[in-house]
């Protein structure tokens, strides 16, 4: 579904050119959950913004369902890292979820049905008339996810969405992502710097290097589904996966600080 070939991105700044992404190739098949894990400052956000069509890339090509992506694609929705900034504080939860489909969906009844379904999907049916700032961080990120779902994309992109919530909430949100993707047969690319999260969610893990990003390894994950925070994470295969990713990232940060 998503094909990335030879993607590179160079920023032009006052002091010259900065290469953020050197060479990234990856594919995400339909219905697959791929996680992209890399150290902090790996240019992951730059990479994701390029894939989402928000940032023009310098080299290579991104295709979604065969279309070359140069601007945001209608089959793709992005869940941002910072939920306090990605939701409109002046709008209720319902209005926030409604935002992407006000013009896209003509019938009011259909719009309302979509919003209700999306909120039910993330377990927030009761919070529709509240404001984002009245909700906990975890609930706000659910609203952001519901907004993506109401858009009815074929693919969801996540940019380190759970980086700033507590551990318990994070586990709940990870399970929510798995449930939603399974239920809606959603394709997803999930960016994170957390190794456990990358392994727990993924069908495949793409490990990227420190800036300028290149793909260091692609690991297939054959942990059984449905996954469970306790049983999956105590499987020997999970531990083995962690131990394969960990050195890849650590070697990176050692090089970066050296």
């Amino acid at each position, binding site marked *: 579904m998503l094909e990335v070939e030879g993607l590179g991105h160079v920023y032009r700044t006052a002091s010259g050119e900065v290469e953020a992404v050197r060479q990234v190739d990856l594919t995400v098949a339909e219905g697959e959950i791929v996680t992209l894990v890399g150290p902090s400052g790996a240019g992951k956000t730059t990479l994701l*913004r390029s894939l989402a*069509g928000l940032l023009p890339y310098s080299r290579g090509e991104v295709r979604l369902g065969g279309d070359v992506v140069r601007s945001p694609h209608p089959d793709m*929705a*992005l869940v941002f890292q910072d939920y306090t900034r*990605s939701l409109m504080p002046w709008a209720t939860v319902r209005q926030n979820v409604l*935002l*992407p489909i*006000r013009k896209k969906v003509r019938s009011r009844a259909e719009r309302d049905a979509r919003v209700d379904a999306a909120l039910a999907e993330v377990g927030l049916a009761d919070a529709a008339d509240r404001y984002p*700032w009245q909700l906990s961080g975890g609930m706000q990120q659910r609203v952001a996810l519901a907004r993506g779902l109401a858009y009815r994309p074929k693919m969801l992109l996540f940019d380190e969405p759970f980086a700033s919530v507590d551990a318990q909430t994070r586990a709940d949100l990870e399970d929510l992502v798995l449930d939603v993707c399974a239920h809606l047969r959603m394709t997803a690319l999930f960016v994170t710097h957390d190794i456990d999260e990358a392994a727990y969610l993924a069908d495949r893990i793409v490990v990227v290097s420190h800036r300028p990003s290149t793909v260091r390894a692609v690991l297939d994950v054959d942990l059984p589904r449905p996954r469970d925070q306790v049983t999956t994470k105590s499987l020997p295969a999970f531990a083995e996966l962690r131990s394969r990713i960990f050195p890849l990232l650590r070697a990176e940060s050692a090089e970066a600080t050296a």
Partner: protein
Amino acid sequence: MTRLLARTATYAALPLAVLAAWWYLTRGGESLYFPPPGQVFTRFRENWLFALVPEHVMPSLVRMFSGLLLSVVVGVALGVALGMSDLAHRATKPWLTLLRSTPGPVVVVTFLVLFGTGSVGKVLMIAFVSVFPVLLNTVDGVRAAEPVLLDVAASYRLSRRERVTRIVLPGALPQISVGVRTSVALAFIVMIVSEYFGGSDGVGYFTRDSASGFAIPDMWSGMLLLGLLGIAVNVLVAVAQRRALRWYAGARAAAKS
């Protein structure tokens, strides 16, 4: 309830003290320019409850609110246009700042020459002076739009119109309202001054006319009314603002905790 009483007492203490001093100092009643408060209150009642309200108060308020409305509409529309374009912003900013610094009285005289002493000229004067705080604050508010929300708008392929009405304008509203508060104060001043210089109605005209006819208690009653109107207009705008920006207060409180 006791707290409300205590607060009211705190606020009322100073004006009551001034009133008492005024009453004490004018108890002889021999000064032409400083009549005792009782006399002023009597004239106030005779003039403003409500005999001269249609003749003087209504024209003043209608002109002020017309000018204010015009300045808000023009200021917000122009401010969004300038705020959304980097080039337009750079090209106009210094000139807008310069124009804003034009003193009100200069504007009043110029507009009197250009448009005469009728209501249209006065409304335009009020609008011209009070458009700048709205305009400059709108530009700033628009330029400070949350970049993540602009990304959200782009990624969901919102139209330019939706981006402005759903994201940029609501986000700029707190800043715009700061400008409106300043504009209200300016509009009120220009309303009075414009009536001083010309015309045949309005509270400003009445006050100046009373002064030049040595109808001193009438003059004081006009001043008192202008003060009270000023307070009333401010309270009205503050209440409207608090209602429109309830989300802002809530979000700020939530961010602090």
